[in-house]
């Protein structure tokens, strides 16, 4: 079966420093891929490349069989939940208005919007301003926005960072429901290793380079692999932050 996502040789440089270095992986239909990596590992950049927000990368990204650079229409099949950002309390749009933004320029009924709101259990907040909701609820409203346009792929960038643990658990239950009941393919980045182990069937570990991509149990069930990942991540950060200085020192010593 054709993969939903096929990333081949993806590299991205920011100020001549590699943010992503030769990353390749695939995601099949119905997969739940958890992407883990420390801060600054390039997870958000990876998503921005995949979603066409960033375009000046090397390599190829195919979504639903089309190159994202050539065919922006495939974005209609994708729901995106960014890292939580604080919405001001006075932002005037209600939950219903925000969810209805998922269907701009497409035919959709009010019933579909209401169903999406009910699915994420925000029925009683329909007429509330989005800024009056808790951060966890705001993220669920954005998921409802993705649902209402019948997204086949959901990309979530650390959606629960900074959210209280009870809300996180509700959010994880919702993701499981979306994957299992609706068959939506999910790509999700998180620092919560326990949640990734519990929820995802596939795992990708990145820190600018791809360290591992495969079945969840092959990573979390292998202590040696996990240990070497931690070492890999630490080494990658040492190289990034101190590499240039070390090189400079080496050069001066050689002189």
């Amino acid at each position, binding site marked *: 079966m054709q993969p939903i996502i096929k990333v081949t040789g993806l590299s991205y440089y920011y100020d001549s420093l590699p943010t992503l270095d030769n990353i390749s992986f695939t995601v099949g239909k119905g997969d739940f891929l958890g992407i883990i990596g420390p801060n600054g590992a390039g997870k958000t950049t990876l998503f921005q490349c995949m979603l066409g927000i960033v375009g000046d990368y090397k390599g190829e990204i195919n979504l639903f069989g089309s190159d994202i650079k050539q065919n922006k229409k495939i974005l*209609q099949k994708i729901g995106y939940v960014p890292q939580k950002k604080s919405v001001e309390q006075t932002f*005037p749009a209600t939950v219903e*208005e925000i969810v209805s*933004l998922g269907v701009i320029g497409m035919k959709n009924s009010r019933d579909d919007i209401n169903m999406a709101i009910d699915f994420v259990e925000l029925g009683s907040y329909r007429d509330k*301003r989005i800024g009056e909701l808790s951060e966890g609820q705001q993220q669920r409203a*954005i998921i409802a*926005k993705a649902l209402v346009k019948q997204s086949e792929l959901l990309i979530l960038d650390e959606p629960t960072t900074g959210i209280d643990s009870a809300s996180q658990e509700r959010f994880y239950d919702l993701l499981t429901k979306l994957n299992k009941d609706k068959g939506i393919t999910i790509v999700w980045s998180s620092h919560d290793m326990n949640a990734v182990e519990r929820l995802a069937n596939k795992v990708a570990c990145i820190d600018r380079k791809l360290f591992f991509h495969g079945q969840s149990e092959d990573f979390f069930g292998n202590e040696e692999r996990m240990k070497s990942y931690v070492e890999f991540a630490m080494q990658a950060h040492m190289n990034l932050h101190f590499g240039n200085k070390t090189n400079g020192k080496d050069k001066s010593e050689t002189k």
Partner: protein
Amino acid sequence: MLFDILQYGFMQRALLSAVAISIICSIVGLFLVLKRHSLFGDALAHVAFGGIALGLFTGIYPILTAYVVAILAAVGVNKLRESTKIPPDSSIAVLLTSGLAIGVILISISGGFTLDLFGFLFGNILLVSNEDLIMILITVAIVVPIIYVLCKRLILIVFDENQAKVSGLNVTWINTLFIVLASITIMASIRLVGVLLISSLIVIPNITALLLGKGFKKTILISCAISVFSVVFGIVASYYVNLVPSGTIVLTMVSMFIVTIIVKNMRFRLKKIVVTK
């Protein structure tokens, strides 16, 4: 009382143009406020000053040069903000000061113009001509339908630009079109309150409505209602009390804003007392 003053042609034109301007300023202003471009009106009005000076200097119809310069400057600054990621308020400061600088230099080179500076700075709605009124109504006929069609897209862009991009929207194109619409709205409105008070029409009704409204549509309607009431009340009151209309309009809006804050605070405290008991 209102019917008496409606007998005068200048007053009919003043009220009609003021109502039209107040509605488009409220609609465009809500998006500007949410984009944190509250002082965009101020900056553009200063650029218009440069544009008018350019028109007078070159002998081209000054209103035309003011429109062209304002639109080009607004689009340019929007591009500057997008390409350099400098904060919106800083890009507006660049726009404001450069417009004023161009105007001052052109005036000094030419040895000064016989420009109605007071009217330009503070507006004079009572001097609106038939041509001005037609221009204002054409601006309304352009701005309102386009904003209506773009409304959902603009809401998504002010909510989260990245999400708007992922939804397949051409964010750059929509932002540019919106900036052009905002520019012609502000240019049409200078006649009412002048360069120095233009931001009041953009900002005050909207921040008042944001305190009251739930939902985008309701907020826009409340903002329009506040704005229309303020301009009509301001013009009528200034006529009878013999005050400057622009100042009276702005003070009416400010009073409504302050009353709204007081009432909201009182309601909040009352609720707190009831809950505690």
